[in-house]
């Protein structure tokens, strides 16, 4: 192995690089969306792609999300691999009918004859001070739609690896990009990109013996922080980064919970009907006799995403996570 000087890169840069490499490797890969061309996207994630590959490969579309996804479906039908950008989570809603009724089902409807290799990039979550409709966590909708993969990176390296894997997938992938991690940095060498990660594998980000924090995307760094803070309370927390909500890595998650006997699911999305319910339920189904306490959930409140000045009270933070860990019935053990 060569030892190249590794410079810090942002998650946004890793995503750009993933698209660039995918476009270079496969002429079928086309990027499209609002402002993705000349501007390089409002988050600059597609920066330089139009310049390098031309407007035909990285196209500014009219302002119509159903139209964007719907035409991408047609392009995929003809053998292209569209990578669609939705400008913000809430602006993906107009495309829901195309997503649910066509994108998720086309392979099934046609007995496998017409798979749709489509990647739908959705910047999601809060913590960036955005005004209303700019900070939604919409993953529950995608998880409840069979036929989609739902993937979300929490690290710079995963951003690259998972996006490459998503673009390479023959199935449609909703690729959720945690907005507030766009500018997170990591020592990741763009000249020697990390390997493409297979979709569907969770990873243990921190080992611990007391309890497992099950999380993904923007909440991963928060959980790691919480795990550090928990040491002061005498808890040694394990942190599992799901990376992919669909498929779900029961194996890794349950192995961890069986080891620790306790678990908290952490996400920004609302609690009621959110991803945490599914995760808690399936972990409980599989690990019931290993559990010292019910699997708890730390999540956003069941409210519309709040205005910027109040968002810190909504987002699951270190204290709220530690409070939940504290409720994991520790007395029962002793």
């Amino acid at each position, binding site marked *: 192995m060569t030892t190249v000087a590794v410079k810090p890169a942002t998650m946004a840069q890793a995503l750009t690089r993933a698209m660039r490499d995918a476009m270079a490797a496969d002429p079928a890969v086309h990027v499209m969306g609002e402002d993705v061309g000349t501007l390089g996207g409002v988050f600059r994630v597609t920066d330089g792609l139009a310049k390098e590959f031309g407007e035909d490969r990285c196209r500014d579309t009219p302002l119509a999300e159903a139209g964007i996804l719907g035409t991408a479906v047609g392009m995929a039908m003809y053998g292209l691999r569209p990578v669609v950008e939705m400008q913000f989570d809430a602006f993906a809603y107009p495309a829901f009918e195309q997503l649910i009724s066509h994108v998720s089902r086309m392979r099934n409807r046609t007995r496998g004859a*017409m798979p749709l290799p489509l990647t739908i990039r959705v910047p999601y979550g809060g913590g960036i001070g955005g005004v209303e409709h700019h900070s939604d966590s919409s993953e529950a909708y995608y998880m409840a739609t069979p*036929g989609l993969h739902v993937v979300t990176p929490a690290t710079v390296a995963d951003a690259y690896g998972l996006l490459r894997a998503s673009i390479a997938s023959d199935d449609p992938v909703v690729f959720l990009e945690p907005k507030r991690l766009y500018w997170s940095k990591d020592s990741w060498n763009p000249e020697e990109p990390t390997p493409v990660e297979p979709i569907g594998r969770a990873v243990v980000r921190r080992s611990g013996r007391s309890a497992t924090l099950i999380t993904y995307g923007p909440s991963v760094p928060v959980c790691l922080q919480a795990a550090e803070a928990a040491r002061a309370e005498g808890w040694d927390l394990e942190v599992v980064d799901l990376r992919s909500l669909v498929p779900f890595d029961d194996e890794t998650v349950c192995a961890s919970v069986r080891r620790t006997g306790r678990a908290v699911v952490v996400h920004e999305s609302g609690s009621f009907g959110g991803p945490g319910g599914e995760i808690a339920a399936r972990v409980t189904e599989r690990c019931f006799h290993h559990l010292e306490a019910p699997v708890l959930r730390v999540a956003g409140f069941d409210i519309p995403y709040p205005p910027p000045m109040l968002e810190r009270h909504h987002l699951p933070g270190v204290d709220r996570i530690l409070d939940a860990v504290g409720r994991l019935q520790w007395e029962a053990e002793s």
Partner: protein
Amino acid sequence: MTVMEQRGAYRPSPPPAWQPRTDPAPLLPDAEPHRVLGTEAAAQADPDLLRRLYAELVRGRRYNTQATALTKQGRLAVYPSSTGQEACEVAAALVLEERDWLFPSYRDTLAVVARGVDPVEALTLLRGDWHTGYDPYEHRVAPLCTPLATQLPHAVGLAHAARLKGDDVVALAMVGDGGTSEGDFHEALNFAAVWQAPVVFLVQNNGFAISVPLAKQTAAPSLAHKAVGYGMPGRLVDGNDAAAVHEVLGDAVRRARAGGGPTLVEAVTYRVEAHTNADDATRYRGDAEVETWREHDPIRLLERELTDRGLLDEAGRQAARDAAEEMAAGLRERMNQDPALDPMDLFAHVYAEDTPQLREQRAMLRAELEAEAESEGERR
């Protein structure tokens, strides 16, 4: 001296960015639907084409009545008949080249069949053994689309992709008058025009969206007038005049293929039968209206033209009827066989590869089926 003249330098100038990019006049449809049959123009029509259209119309009508009969026999779950609209269905299929793509709406199984798809495969959706019954790539026919207007952006994307790849492929997408009210219609037409995609949009204005008449659907002079708002030509055609529909669609297809961009065609026609076999049309319209349209029947119009011009005699009519009967008999026979069903297919095509979750569910269903088979075996 007028006020204006006094003002010297101060002359109104158009706002700098104001550049109308398209002349609207040629985009507007004629006031009357285009017609060929029974007009001078019919003399120019290719007799072979007219005869071919005739044979297909007769077959198409028979297909419609046969499919409706199959619903009564419990062999189809539901059938939305295109009786009275056969001219549009048939012309849409015939106007395309092999390499072109057809994007049908849920009512358009006839167009699908006319394009060459096996009639039983075309009816799979409505029989209920699977969703799309044919391989879309075999005849380049997209799945019959039930959510209205949602197939239109697909047609645009496909046509656009073909153009990017350098293929001179045209996509023809079908939609109803009701479907034009959906946002997807708007977005598809706009993308098509901006991208100059080689697409032809065929709106079959059959007067109704289930029970809702056109007057409650739109206040536009015609649906074809929507075209100018996208910067594409709108064409209005008598949808029961097979020669006219074929001509107008043919022009649009040629234009698209030559790089001239999309066209919106409104074919004025009528849904003679109820919405589907499950619908009761008497709840929302009278017989008298239906009768006026029977006068304007597409087969009748073409038959008259062919007969007047000596291109069709009783023998020819009989031959067309015989061919149609043969098709119907074959269809009847094949549809009377129960389709082979495998419940495990439920999991076969959700993803390229089962998720771990689906593997578990697959195992569960398999166990259930085995238990079922066992207990049935015991009973025997």
